[in-house]
């Protein structure tokens, strides 16, 4: 029995290696995800206290910890608490090293690339400045060979925010223990998405719905090149970190044994470099613009938080306008939005759990961009662009892998879907830029402590984008990644 288990483990490792060797292909934007060992060091917690085994996906406790401003409600929340973990260092880093391959095929021909390398680098610092004063900073340095050597990356302050917690106390409202009814976050941050992309275990596959833009081929969205497109001044995507302010809150609901959460954000995000209405051909005009957009998300869970235990439903949406006009008082300044160029997004999300090990979740979103956006770009007979996006993901995090009696495995499958109802440019087919994407991943938590994480990661993605090939054919892509994902 002893040797059979050893052989089985060796077999699994061999399969993963084989998976790497025989897979061909890929391209790809490698997604950045977050795991914060600094918290483990601060509280003397092992990583799976806050994460589903195989970080970075948060479990129920970790989600509550985040929603409550990175606080447990104990003295140790304060950064100057004398009993704080001696290993505490408030900065974490994360990257993935390994082998990535990609293949993109269209119109009967394809290109395959692959190589060893690393994804990129995240330097993260999250925590509290004091009781009920939270902060977060994510710095991604510019690298010459990021994305497994596929290109350089620009340095960026991907997130930087301060969060003021429990502001209801200034309104004379006394909240129950564990409730944080009114919190204000200001800066640049990830929106309160139905399911966080930054904390998704998928490393080289985006949530298509979060980044989809009518007129821009999906392949361009994930870092590839676009072979056909039409201009759309709306660059708002809920999956991108946005500068703005967010009001949010969480309340335990005794009637459901769950939690009610809400968030409402006012954002200023747009940047568009296409033609602007009112800009004469011989004039230098501003090429970017900013407008206030809004995003909101409410959820109600039952029998738990809804990620590891219980179930959860949610409703989310966004509304805004895209800048298309030259600023009449300052042509070289940022562009402004004319009237009648709104966009809207509306969706629902559901998360179901079973046995504390299975999590089936997904979201559906409807999007609409005003035809005036496309008219501003000189598209004749422009019409409103509308589309539906969705995804469904099944995660399995067994406490003990059946048959093999091994701990710390994580499996996931996700299907992403985009279906266009109407194109902004009527010369494009209705199904132009439709997307089908399948992702399968396996993670094995090689090591995790109260200091560090190391996971073996294998991920495969196959996608099809309709009608975006050079000759109007479909574009098919596959990506494969096998590597070590680590955080310190």
């Amino acid at each position, binding site marked *: 029995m002893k040797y059979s288990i050893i052989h089985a483990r060796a077999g699994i490792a061999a399969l993963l290696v084989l998976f790497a060797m025989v897979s061909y292909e890929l391209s790809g934007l490698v997604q950045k995800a977050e795991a914060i060992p600094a918290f483990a060091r601060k509280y003397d*917690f*092992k990583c799976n206290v806050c994460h589903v085994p195989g970080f970075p996906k948060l479990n129920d*406790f*970790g989600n509550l910890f985040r929603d409550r401003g990175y606080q447990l409600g*104990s003295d140790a929340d304060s950064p100057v608490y004398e009993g704080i973990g001696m290993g505490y260092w408030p900065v974490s880093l994360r990257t993935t090293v390994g082998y990535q391959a990609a293949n993109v095929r269209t119109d009967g021909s394809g290109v395959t690339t692959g190589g060893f390398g690393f994804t990129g680098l995240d330097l993260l610092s999250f925590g509290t400045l004091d009781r009920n004063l939270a902060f977060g900073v994510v710095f991604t340095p510019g690298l010459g060979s990021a994305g497994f050597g596929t290109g350089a990356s620009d340095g960026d302050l991907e997130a930087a925010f301060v969060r003021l917690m429990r502001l209801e106390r200034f309104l004379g409202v006394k909240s129950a223990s564990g409730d944080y009814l009114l919190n204000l976050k200001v800066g640049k941050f990830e929106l309160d998405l139905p399911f966080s992309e930054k904390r998704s275990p998928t490393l080289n596959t985006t949530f298509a719905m979060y980044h989809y833009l009518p007129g821009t081929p999906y392949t361009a969205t994930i870092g590839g090149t676009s072979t056909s497109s039409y201009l759309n001044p709306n660059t708002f995507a809920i999956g991108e970190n946005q500068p703005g302010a967010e009001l949010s809150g969480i309340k335990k609901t005794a009637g459901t044994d769950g939690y009610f959460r809400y968030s409402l954000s006012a954002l200023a995000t747009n940047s568009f470099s296409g033609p602007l209405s009112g800009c004469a051909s011989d004039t230098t005009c501003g090429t970017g613009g900013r407008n206030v957009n809004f995003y909101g998300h409410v959820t109600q869970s039952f029998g738990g938080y809804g990620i590891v235990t219980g179930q959860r439903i949610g409703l989310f949406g966004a509304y805004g306008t895209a800048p298309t006009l030259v600023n009449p008082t300052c042509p070289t300044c940022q562009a402004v939005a004319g009237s009648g160029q709104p966009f809207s997004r509306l969706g629902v999300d559901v998360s179901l759990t079973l*046995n504390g090990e299975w999590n089936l979740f997904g979201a559906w979103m409807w999007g609409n961009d005003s035809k005036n956006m496309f008219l501003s770009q000189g598209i004749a007979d422009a019409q409103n662009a509308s589309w539906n996006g969705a995804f469904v993901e099944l995660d399995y*995090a067994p406490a003990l892998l059946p048959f093999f009696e091994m*701990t710390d495995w994580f499996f996931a499958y996700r299907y992403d879907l985009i279906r266009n109802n109407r194109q902004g440019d009527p010369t494009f087919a209705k199904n132009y830029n439709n997307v089908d994407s399948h992702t399968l991943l396996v993670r094995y938590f090689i090591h*995790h402590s109260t*200091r560090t994480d190391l996971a073996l990661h294998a991920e495969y993605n196959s996608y099809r984008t309709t009608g975006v090939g050079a000759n109007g054919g479909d574009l098919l892509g596959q990506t494969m990644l096998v590597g070590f994902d680590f955080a310190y």
Partner: protein
Amino acid sequence: MRWGKAGWVWLCLLSVGCATATPQAELPCFSCDDQRVVRIVPPAKLRSNDQGRRFQHPVNLTQAEWETLLRGVMVRSTHSPLLGTSYQGATEPLFLDEEVRALGSSLRQAFQQATEQEAVVFSTARATEEGPAQVTSGAWFVEDGRIHLRLANCRVAVTMPSIRRQIWIDPLFSQAGTFYELAPGNRQALVSKPSGGGGLFRPDPVELVIDQSGRSEAAAPEGPPAVPSASSLEERLAVLKRLHDRGLITEEEYRLKKQQLLERL
């Protein structure tokens, strides 16, 4: 055709799903609930290197004797910071009074029924004021006339119900990352005996061996004092004060418990 490509994915998921439906065998259990479990385990449930061991079971210790043994098990916190030197905290009892009473009763019953091939495993969860529950688990057995405690988890924070359930099923299922270590007292020693329960990145749990030369000594072992150290007493008083301030205990309960703690000085 597209569904065909995804077919094997669903097949794999279905296979794993069916596998998880494998029923767990029922084991004799004492005082089993969501806070505590004490059970006899057969050889097949022990770690591979332990399966050939012969224990001196059954054992007839009284509840009071078990409670004395349990009170004599001491631990101390230990930290290895990123920079600087490691340090150790104060020595303190592993089990609280409530845990000693509950475990003492269950261990007495379990050891009266255990055979020479069976060990007795335990898990206990301790609620903390705001944070996650702390789980302590391991196994007890008697070998070579001495009582052995193999501690797999010591006050490990557990939030995932699946992990907690797994520890309840198998208390020797070790979670890495403990910040406590056993502190042997008189007539106690630590031994590192590979159990086969570790792994490439998981050290084997250590065993605390308690010398039980004669029942009278077992009844009154010369272990570390059962009286809590000054620091642990201070912590208990602070916890008591917080409970009172939050209205979780009455004024009368607060004064009574405070008096009891102070009398133990």
